[in-house]
Each structure stands twice: as structure tokens, then as C-alpha cells.
């Protein structure tokens, strides 16, 4: 190797090793590290659930089994589906979640528009109230709300009437219609910010054409607010699907997926105790619960992967920030 070619190679290396390149490479490496760490933390519980849901009970106590089950079985799923009454609970949950998230979408967009575009006395107070509903923990109003629906007298307006609305969908429907559902204050906020960012020319053109406020809202503003509507609908759907707190309090007796999952282990062991054996060990219960949990979140994961563009990209463009 001659001296000149060595020098050329050396200078090429030096050119590559400029400060800028080094920093860029360092960043890329750091990013990769962070991503691996985050992927590990997020996916670990999920993968652990998936792998254990296919295990037989002996595998849990077998120290040589880490991730791949030795006694592969579908029994956990079979039992989970049977004792959760899965097909029925799934359909009920789907119907309820779809209906409620559409109701919430309707109420939150109407209210958001009212707060964004019309000036009236008390508007700022009302907007403050929207934020206030987000800040108060639902646990605080849980008991009074429960009693209000247990002895429903139209909020003190018809004292003689005492309907028990618990176990029906009415409490959830009433809350959805009046923008009081899960995190609905946030949705009102998103819709208000979005409508505020839309140009006024659109409505004014509609007004000149002789449309009233409602025509203008439905024919011009709503179609223009599609990205925000999609975001609100998706989040409403996801949070409603995942909600256990309100669903359990108001409709705990209904065959819905969160209720069914909560009762899964109990129902299973009750059935077993009739058959003679009485106690279902903790390990066995966790296998069953893992299969059940996956059955509950599977529809959401599929929805999320299919619509991930809408979840992430349109949030960026909705002016969540305003």
C-alpha cells in the first residue's frame, strides 16, 4: 500500500468524521436506543399477556418456560368466550359504544360551535364550566349521581315519581346527550378550538343565501370540520369502549364486555364449584383473565392499526392547540 493511497483513505475518513455527521449519527443511535426502550416497556405487558393466554397452568410454575408455552392450549380462550358470553357481550358493547359515541359527538360539536361562534352573556362562565367538569374527579359526584338515577324523580321536578334507572342505558344516554360522558369536556374544547379556527366567510355566504344558524351549521360548518369530528369520534369510541367506571355503576347488570371481564373469574369458579372442585388458584385465574383482557382490547387494536392515520395525523391538524 503506497503512502498516497493511505493518505487519501485517511482524508476520506476525516471528511466523514466531521462534527455534524458525528452528532447526526449520535442522535440516530440515541433515538434507536430510546425507541427500543419504549417499545420494550409498552409491548412487554401486552406480549406477556399474549404468550400466557396460550399456556396451561403447569407452564406457569415451570421455571424453564419463559415466553413459549410448552403445553399450548386454547382452553383459556374457550373458557373466556364461554363465561364472558362473548358474542352477546361483544354485540351489546359495540351497539352501546357506537350509539353513545355518536351521541357524544353530536352534543359536543353542537356545544363547541355555540361556544365558538355566538356571543351571549355568560359564555365565558359556560366555557369555564366545561373546564371545571374535567377537573372534578368523577368519584366525587359518583354517589349522588348514583342515587339520582336510583330514585329518578326528574331531578327533583317530579317528587312523587321514583324510577329506578339503574340497569338501563338511560343514565348513559342522558349523559351522552348532554355532553357529560367520559372526558366530554375535552371534546367540547377540541370542537370549540376547531370551529374558532375556521374562516367566517363560509357561514356568511350561507347567511347571505338566506340560511339560518342551524342550516349554516349543518350544511357548511359540519362538513368543514370533518378532521375534528373524526378525532372526537375515535376518542369517544375508544374511551367509551374502555370505560368501566360509569358502565359498571349504571349498567353493571347488563351483559357488556367490561362487566363480563370483571366477573369472568368469579363465574368460572362458581361453575367449577358446582362440578365439585371449589378453588381456582390465582395462577389459573390470571391465565383466564389474560385471555379475557385480550378479547376485550382486540377490537380496539384492530381498529387502531387500521385507522392509525386518523388517530395521529388528524390530531396534529385539528388545532387541538389553537
Amino acid at each position, binding site marked *: 500500500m503506497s503512502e498516497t493511497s493511505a493518505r487519501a483513505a485517511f482524508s476520506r475518513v476525516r471528511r466523514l468524521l466531521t462534527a455534524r455527521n458525528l452528532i447526526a449519527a449520535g442522535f440516530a443511535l440515541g433515538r434507536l436506543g430510546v425507541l427500543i426502550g419504549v417499545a420494550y416497556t409498552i409491548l412487554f405487558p401486552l406480549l406477556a399477556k399474549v404468550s400466557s393466554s396460550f399456556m396451561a397452568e403447569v407452564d406457569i410454575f415451570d421455571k424453564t418456560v419463559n415466553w413459549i408455552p410448552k403445553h399450548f392450549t386454547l382452553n383459556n380462550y374457550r373458557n373466556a368466550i364461554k363465561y364472558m358470553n362473548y358474542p352477546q357481550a361483544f354485540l351489546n358493547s359495540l351497539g352501546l359504544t357506537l350509539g353513545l359515541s355518536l351521541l357524544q359527538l353530536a352534543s359536543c360539536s353542537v356545544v363547541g360551535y355555540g361556544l365558538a361562534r*355566538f356571543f351571549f352573556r355568560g359564555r365565558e362562565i359556560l366555557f369555564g364550566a366545561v373546564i371545571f*367538569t374535567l*377537573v372534578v*374527579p368523577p368519584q366525587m359526584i359518583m354517589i349522588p349521581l348514583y342515587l339520582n338515577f336510583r330514585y329518578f324523580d326528574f331531578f327533583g321536578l317530579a317528587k312523587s315519581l321514583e324510577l329506578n334507572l339503574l340497569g338501563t342505558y338511560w343514565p348513559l344516554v342522558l349523559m351522552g346527550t348532554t355532553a357529560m360522558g367520559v372526558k366530554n369536556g375535552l371534546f367540547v374544547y377540541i370542537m370549540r378550538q376547531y370551529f374558532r379556527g375556521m374562516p367566517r366567510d363560509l357561514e356568511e355566504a350561507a347567511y347571505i343565501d338566506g340560511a339560518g344558524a342551524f342550516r349554516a351549521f349543518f350544511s357548511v360548518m359540519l362538513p368543514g370540520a370533518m378532521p375534528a369530528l373524526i378525532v372526537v369520534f375515535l376518542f369517544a369510541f375508544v374511551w367509551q369502549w374502555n370505560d368501566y367506571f360509569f358502565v359498571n355503576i349504571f349498567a353493571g347488570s347488563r351483559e357488556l364486555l*367490561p362487566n363480563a371481564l370483571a366477573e369472568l373469574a368469579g363465574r368460572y369458579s362458581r361453575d367449577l364449584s358446582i362440578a365439585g372442585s371449589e378453588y381456582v388458584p390465582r395462577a389459573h385465574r390470571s391465565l383466564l383473565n389474560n385471555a379475557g383482557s385480550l378479547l376485550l382490547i382486540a377490537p380496539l387494536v384492530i381498529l387502531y392499526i387500521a385507522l*392509525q392515520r386518523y388517530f395521529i395525523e388528524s390530531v396534529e391538524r385539528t388545532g387541538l392547540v389553537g
Partner: protein
Amino acid sequence: MRISKIRMKKGHREAVNGIIFTLPFTLGFTFLFLRPFVQAIIFSFHNLQIGSHGYSLDFAGFGNYVNALFVQPEFVRTWVETTAQMLLNVPLILAFSFFSAVMLNQPFRGRTAARVLYFLPVILASGIVLQLEQDNYFIESLRSMEETEQGFISLQTLGVFLMRLRLPAGLLEFIMAAVQRAPVIIRSSGVQILVFLAGLQSIPPSLYEAADVEGGTAWENFWMITLPMLSPLILTNIVYTIVDSLVDPQNELVQLIRKSAFGSAGYGVSTAMSVLYFIGTFAILLIAIAIVSKWVFYHE
């Protein structure tokens, strides 16, 4: 005169429209929020008995509060612990989501997949699933195995390494606590990352172009443009994070309040607990807003 009359009429109609559009919320807020809220405060001063025909209230003065604070063995301890954890988590979640958003905003291969991954916890945060996870035999045993044997950096190794660096004890404790709660931090950062990402997209590119002309480095751009432009969102995210910790199904105090309601303590004491918790958190929220809004920078 005629013009002002028309204007008045227009203003009147606008007000009527505004009231009609916001009516669903006004009704819901009054009957499904404010009324139960006031009732909760009233209940906290009473003993509540539920019979077969409605419920009855016995006035108890501050008895429930005294009971919650001085008789219930776990309440004060859990309250302090939950609040301390929240105060520790908020800056960590904020820092993590801020830098994650900056990272996810850069162009690189696999960015879409990375974003999908980061927001997965928002989708998976099912109340009942998280509740069951606490009683999950398999994951627990796997996790303890990872920590003692196979994890790529065990906590002890990290602790020993940091001791060698002769870091001050306070900082060392903070780092160890941060590492320990990494899963919680990562899991509760999804929405905050989304908010920061939206903010990053809304920074006008002309600012960076101007800085380029002036010869600003990436480091300077970050401190002089990105951080100040995102500072209003830092406030938004602090509020969101504090509020989110209130409704976290894994929040121990929330579990205690719920357990007390249906346990021996009773509705009255449970409601007193939740009123105290609300007042405490609200105070923290106001203090945080007061401190942070001092250095928030508004572009307009």
C-alpha cells in the same frame, strides 16, 4: 338609529342562537354535574342511610371529615403518597413527552411505526384491564425475573454505577425513582405527546429559516424558538397530567375512596374524603398554573 336597531336585533338573535346551541351542555351541567356536586358536599356533612324508599340524611357536622382525617387509618397516608407520586410524575411525564414529541417530529425511517407504538397505551388504557393487571400472576413473576436475572440493566447495577459517579444523594434518588417508574411515565404520556406534536407542527417554519440566516445552531434554535413557542402547551399538559392522575384507575386514593363508600366507613366519610382530595388537587392545580404561567411565552 335604524342601524343600531338592526344591530341590536342581530346581537339578540346571536345570543339566542348561542344559548340554544349550548343548551345540551347547560342542562347536563346543571342537572348531571352541578346538582350532584353540591349534593356531594352536602352528603359529606351528613350520615347517609339508604333504605328501600329513597335515602335519608342525618346531620353530622364535621364528623365525617374528622373521621376521614383522624380515624380512618389509611386515608392521610395514602393521600400524601398519591400527591407526592403525582408531583414526581408530572415533571417526568412532561419531560418525556416533550422530548418524544421533538423526536417523533423529525423525519426518520420507521417514524410512522414509532408513532403508532407511542400512542398504543392511549388505546389500551382500559379501566378493567388495568385493574386486573394488578392481580396478574404471570406478568408479575416475569417482571421480577427480568429484574433479578436477565434484564439488560438491573436496577442494582444502575444504582452502583451512579454511586461510582459520586452524584449527590438527592439526584441519585431522583434518577432511581425515575427509572423505576419508567413504565408508568411512558404509559401516561400519549395524549401529551400528541398535544406537543400538534404544537410543533404549528410553529411557523419562517422562524427557523430566519434563525438559519442569522447562523443559529440547532441547539440555539431549540432553546430560543421551539421551547418558548411550546410553552403555552406545557401549561396545557401540566393541567392535563394532573387531571388525568385523578381518574387513573390505578390511583390508590381513588380505590380507597371507592372501597370506603361500600365498606364500613360509609358514604358520608367516603364523600368527605373525595371532597378533601378534590380541594387538595385543585389547590395544586392553581399553584402550578400560577407558577408556570409566569414564564409562558405567547407569540401573538
